[in-house]
């Protein structure tokens, strides 16, 4: 399979993975490839490298997708039949816009935005990037201007954070747990009965009264808006579970990212979320085949001074330690999932930060199986 087949009839592609595995670049290459195939695609990135952002013309922080000028994409031999749009997510602004949209009047929106609890929530707190990324995805999906949305998930160490963090923050915004504590007649109090009173005083004793009153003010301001958060959470949940959505895992072939990819795939399965495939970046392919390492030195001795030949051989030997490692980890990964849904991108000479670099990755993601085998063979030839 290739990405084109994995994303057939899909409207949303979520690229998930642990940090440092090339998620942003892969998301951009996928979006470019799908646009080349004729779709109108928007890629939502969180924090692209400056040079990649510049390459895509993403200098302006508009928080809305903007079309990547076709001229920027005309560097390679890839014909782009569709349209590529891109945006950089601004979490704080997305959060503010969300509040503005659901507030009953502008005055209330301003009050909320000035609230200390809200300010903290919308910036420093972990989970706000994840929540706003999904909120943006949902908004763009509702607007329906694109054939496909590609979401680059926020940079976290742990891919699962993307699934867990928004839920935590949403649970807070819905205010269920807190309200149960705050209202003497609330559901929580009824459930807990008289036992809740010492709990409440204990809570005050531990947290300090001001924090409680700040939170109370915050939730009073939110008022009925908490219902919107619940509704939205449900809609987002539905969007992520939709058959037109696909989760693509991005990983490298080192042990820990592969472990994490396996966990993530299991988690998707357990949660009934649609799994598309795995992109494994920076693969060190076996270049030796069935030849003995000493043959390398012998072959080099004919064209290089002996001492230099030794260092080239050492380099080759070190490379092959990684090739064996990658092969071992990929075998482990493919035993856990459908082998056809595993796409390997080799270790490239350079970091990718321009359209040409995206095209180099694109070849491996969008090639047919036969073409891909040829590309790998070419590495060895």
């Amino acid at each position, binding site marked *: 399979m290739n990405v084109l087949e994995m994303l057939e009839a899909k409207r949303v592609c979520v690229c998930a993975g642990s940090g440092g595995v090339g998620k942003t670049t892969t998301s951009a290459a996928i979006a470019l490839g799908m646009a080349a195939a004729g779709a109108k695609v928007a890629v939502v990135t969180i924090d692209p490298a400056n040079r990649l952002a510049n390459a895509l013309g993403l200098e302006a922080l508009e928080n809305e997708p903007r079309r990547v000028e076709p001229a920027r994409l005309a560097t390679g031999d890839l014909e782009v039949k569709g349209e590529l749009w891109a945006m950089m997510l601004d979490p704080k602004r997305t959060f503010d816009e969300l509040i503005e949209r659901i507030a009953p009047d502008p005055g209330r929106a301003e009050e909320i935005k000035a609230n200390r609890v809200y300010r903290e929530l919308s910036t420093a707190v972990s989970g706000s990037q994840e929540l706003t990324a999904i909120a943006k995805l949902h908004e763009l999906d509702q607007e329906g201007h694109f054939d496909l949305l590609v979401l680059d998930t926020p940079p976290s160490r742990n891919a699962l954070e993307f699934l867990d963090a928004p839920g935590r923050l949403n649970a807070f915004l819905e205010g269920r747990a807190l309200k149960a504590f705050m209202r003497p007649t609330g559901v929580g109090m009824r459930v807990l009965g008289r036992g809740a009173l010492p*709990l409440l005083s*204990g809570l005050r004793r531990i947290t300090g009264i001001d924090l409680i009153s700040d939170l109370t003010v915050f939730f009073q301001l939110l008022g009925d808006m908490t219902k919107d958060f619940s509704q939205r959470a449900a809609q987002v949940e539905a969007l992520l579970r939709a058959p037109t959505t696909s989760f693509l895992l991005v990983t490298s072939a080192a*042990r820990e990212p592969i472990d994490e990819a396996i966990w993530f795939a299991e988690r998707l399965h357990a949660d009934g979320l649609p799994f598309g495939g795995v992109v494994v970046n920076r693969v060190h392919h076996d270049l030796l085949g069935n030849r003995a390492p000493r043959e390398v030195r012998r072959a080099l001795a004919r064209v290089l001074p002996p001492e230099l030949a030794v260092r080239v051989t050492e380099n080759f030997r070190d490379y092959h330690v990684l090739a064996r*490692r990658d092969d071992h980890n990929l075998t482990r990964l493919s035993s856990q999932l459908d082998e056809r849904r595993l796409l390997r991108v080799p270790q490239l*000479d*350079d970091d990718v930060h321009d359209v040409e670099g995206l095209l180099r990755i694109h070849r491996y993601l969008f090639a047919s199986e036969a073409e891909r085998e040829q590309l790998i063979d070419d590495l060895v*030839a």
Partner: protein
Amino acid sequence: MPALLDKRLVFVTGKGGVGKSTVAIALGLVAARRGLRTIVAELASQERVQGLFFDDGGEQFRELQIAPGLFTISIDPQQAMEEYLRLKAGTIGQALGSSRLFQAFAMATPGMRELLSIGKVWELAQLNRRTRGGAPYDLVIVDAPATGHGVGLLRTPRTFADIARVGPIAHQGQTIADTIADHEFTGVIAVATPEEMPVNETVVLAEELARDKLLLDLLVVNALYPSRFESDEIDQLNAALTRTRSALARTALRAALSEHARAATQREQRDRLRDHVDARLVELPYIFADHVGLHELETLSDVLAAALNVTEGVS
């Protein structure tokens, strides 16, 4: 200002995937070998450090010894909360801790998980441990979550102190914030691989630390490829590439050229980091191995020890 290992609390920060855990343990080994009773604390239930040493992921949330004088703990916010409540509020605390509603509330409150985690870190670094039977540590090394969240973690106590203003949380937040701001007590290490994004993030991290009046004690450039070839040798390799008829020789030559290109790019990125961040810089080599296990960690800790000795007393 005291040398890094004379501090009691050291945060290891950096973007995801740059090898923070590796650096944290390698530093832990250096400290333990110097006779310091040391613990590496990982946050957010990552269980990476313990995963390196215990096949079953270790006994969760306990202090475990992994080498002479070196311990690890994986900090779970919920567990930290229960411990805190038990100690602070006695029976009411215990009742709160076991209340599912309260747990849901506390865990959902923005920043609370971070505050509880860092509170536990603070507790580990105290000479008089609150934890019953807890022996004091000379050095606590924190394997912090990825940056973006990393500075956030260091800022959390101050934020809570500001938000809560008065009361126990404000007090506790203030105490922890003061500890973090104390350069005699607390140190910060930033780990980056010599690549564009990690370098960018580290530059931003350094700026944010400076804004919060925190010092960056050490920059670790991790996983630096060896520089195997001189530039005139590259010409020789290219020439050999056109001359040889052996496919195997061509493959090996191309691998050499490819790695040389990466090594050169890495050095540009390292220099960029050095130019933009004012802190001591230590380089750790790329480890060509199946995975970074105890043997590799010891190799890295030797490099780190040598680098720290050389630079000690300079700053």
